[in-house]
C-alpha cells in the first residue's frame, strides 16, 4: 500500500485521469444496469397483469358472463380466464383503499362491475380477443394492454442494444486511458525495471506494483461510484415510492432465480456492488497487463 500511495503522489495527474475515467465508466455502467433492471422488472410486472380485462355492466346476469368465458376458453387461444364477481371486486377495492376510509364508505359491492381477467396464449391473439369482447352485449369496457407491453418491449430492446454499445465503448476507453497512464508511469521507471530484470526479478514481481496500483484505482472507483449511486437512491426513494404506487414489487428473471429490485433491498445493492467491483478489477488487470507487456521481454 505504501508503494501504491507513493506512486499516486508522484504522478498525480496521470493517476487522476485514470481514476476519473474508471469512476465514470463504472458509475455510468451501474446507472445503465439499474435502468435496464427497472425497465425489465416493469415489463415482467406488466406481463403478470391480465392482458385483457373486460368489465361488464353491474347488473349483467352471471350466466351471460359464463357464456362469454366458456366460448373464449374453447377458442384454443386462451391461457387462463379468471372471473371476478362484484363481491370479489369489492374485496379488491377495499384492500387497495384500506388507508382511505372515506373512499370505502362511498362504495358498495352493487356498483362495482363484474369482470373477466384474460391471459392469451400468445400476444398476437390479443387484438382478436379484444374485438370479440367489444361485440358482446352488457360489456362496459375492454382494457387491452398490448400497446403498453409492446412499447416497453421495444424500449427494452433499444435500451439493451444501446447500453451494450455504450458499455463496450466505456470499457474500451477506460482500458486505453488506464493503459496509457500506466505506460507513462512505467516509462518513468524504465531504469528501475531494467535493474530489477538484471537482479533476476520475475515478470510477476515487476508487474506487481503496477497491478496493485491499477487494482487500487479500480476498487476505489467502484466503491465511490456505488456510494454515490446508493446516496442518490436513498435520496430519491420517497419520489420512487410515489411514482411506483400500486406496484407492490418488481423483479428480474435471472436464469433459475428471481431477483427482487423493488422495493429496494440489500441483495440487489450487493449484486450491483459486486458487478461494479468485478468490472473495476477486470479493467485494472487488463490495462496493467497490456501496459507492462512490452517492458517484460528479455
Amino acid at each position, binding site marked *: 500500500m505504501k508503494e501504491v500511495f507513493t506512486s499516486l503522489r508522484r504522478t498525480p495527474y496521470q493517476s487522476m485521469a485514470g481514476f476519473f475515467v474508471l469512476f465514470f465508466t463504472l458509475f455510468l455502467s451501474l446507472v445503465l444496469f439499474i435502468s435496464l433492471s427497472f425497465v425489465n422488472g416493469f415489463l415482467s410486472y406488466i406481463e403478470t397483469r391480465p392482458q385483457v380485462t373486460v368489465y361488464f355492466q353491474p347488473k349483467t346476469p352471471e350466466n351471460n358472463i359464463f357464456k362469454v368465458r366458456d366460448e373464449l376458453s374453447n377458442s384454443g387461444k386462451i391461457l387462463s380466464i379468471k372471473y371476478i364477481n362484484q363481491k370479489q371486486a369489492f374485496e379488491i377495492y377495499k384492500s387497495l383503499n384500506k388507508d382511505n376510509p372515506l373512499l370505502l364508505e362511498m362504495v358498495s359491492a352493487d356498483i362495482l362491475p363484474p369482470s373477466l381477467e384474460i391471459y392469451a396464449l400468445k400476444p398476437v391473439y390479443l387484438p382478436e380477443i379484444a374485438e370479440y369482447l367489444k361485440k358482446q352485449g352488457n360489456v362496459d369496457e375492454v382494457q387491452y394492454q398490448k400497446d403498453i407491453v409492446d412499447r416497453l418491449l421495444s424500449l427494452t430492446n433499444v435500451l439493451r442494444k444501446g447500453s451494450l454499445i455504450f458499455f463496450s465503448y466505456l470499457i474500451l476507453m477506460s482500458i486505453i486511458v488506464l493503459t496509457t497512464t500506466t505506460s507513462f508511469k512505467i516509462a518513468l521507471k524504465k531504469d528501475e525495471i531494467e*535493474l530489477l530484470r538484471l537482479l*533476476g526479478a520475475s515478470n510477476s514481481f515487476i508487474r506487481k506494483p503496477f497491478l496493485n496500483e491499477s487494482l487500487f484505482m479500480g476498487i476505489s472507483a467502484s466503491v465511490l461510484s456505488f456510494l454515490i449511486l446508493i446516496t442518490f437512491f436513498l435520496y430519491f426513494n420517497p419520489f420512487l415510492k410515489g411514482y411506483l404506487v400500486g406496484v407492490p414489487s418488481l423483479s428480474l428473471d435471472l436464469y433459475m432465480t428471481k431477483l427482487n429490485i423493488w422495493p429496494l433491498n440489500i441483495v440487489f445493492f450487493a449484486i450491483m456492488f459486486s458487478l461494479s467491483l468485478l468490472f473495476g478489477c477486470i479493467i485494472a488487470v487488463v490495462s496493467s497487463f497490456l501496459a507492462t507487456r512490452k517492458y517484460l521481454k528479455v
Partner: protein
Amino acid sequence: MIVFDKVTKKFPLGNFALNEVSFEIDDNEFIFLVGPSGAGKTSIIKLIMKELSPTSGSIVIDDEDISSSSFKKISRLRRKIGAVFQDFKILTDKSIFENVAVTCQIQNLDKGETKKRVRETLSLVGLEKKEKVFPVQLSAGELQRVAIARAIVGEKKFLVADEPTGNLDPKTSWEIMKIFKKLEGTKTIIIATHNSDIVNSFQKRVLVLKEGKLVKDKRSGGYDL
C-alpha cells in the same frame, strides 16, 4: 563454475566484441578481467549476465548452458549473480535499506530474514548507520558500497563487477577493493577493470583481453598497460 567455450560475439555491423574466447573459472575463484577500452571486458560481463547472447560458442554457468535459455532460466540464473556497475544503478527514490532489500524481495525472503540480512550486509560494507538515508545524501564511494551490498546480500554464488572503481578517486577505489578482498573465498568474483595498480596489488588470476581476443591468462600475476 563458469566455462566459456569458443565464444564469439559479433555485432550486426560486423565488428567483433569477442572472438573465439575460451576460459574456465572455478568456484570461489577471484579473477580480474583486464584490457584497454573496447577489449571485450564488458561483453564478457554482459554475456555472463545474459544481457547479450553469443553469436557462436557456448557459455556454461553452474552446469547450465545459458547460450539459449528461456526467460525463466535467465531470471533464476541472475538471482545467483550479484552485479556491480560503474554507474552504480542505485534507485534514487528508495532508501539505502530499500535499495539493498530489493534483492531479498526478488529472492522471496520474508520480512524478518530480509531485515537481518540487509543489516548484516550494510555492516559489512560500513554503511550500518545509513540505512534510512536516501542516495542523494551519499558520496560516490558510499553509493558504490550500496551497490556492492545489493550485489552480495542473499544467496549469491557469483559476483561480477564492471569497472567498480571507474568513477571513484584512488582512495575510495582502494576502500571499495578492500570490500571485495573481504569477500574472497565466499563466492566467485569477477572484476573488470583497467586499473593496473589494483590488479598488481591483489596478485590474483588475470585474464587479459585485446580487441576481443583473450591474449593472456595469468594464474597469479599482474598487469601492465
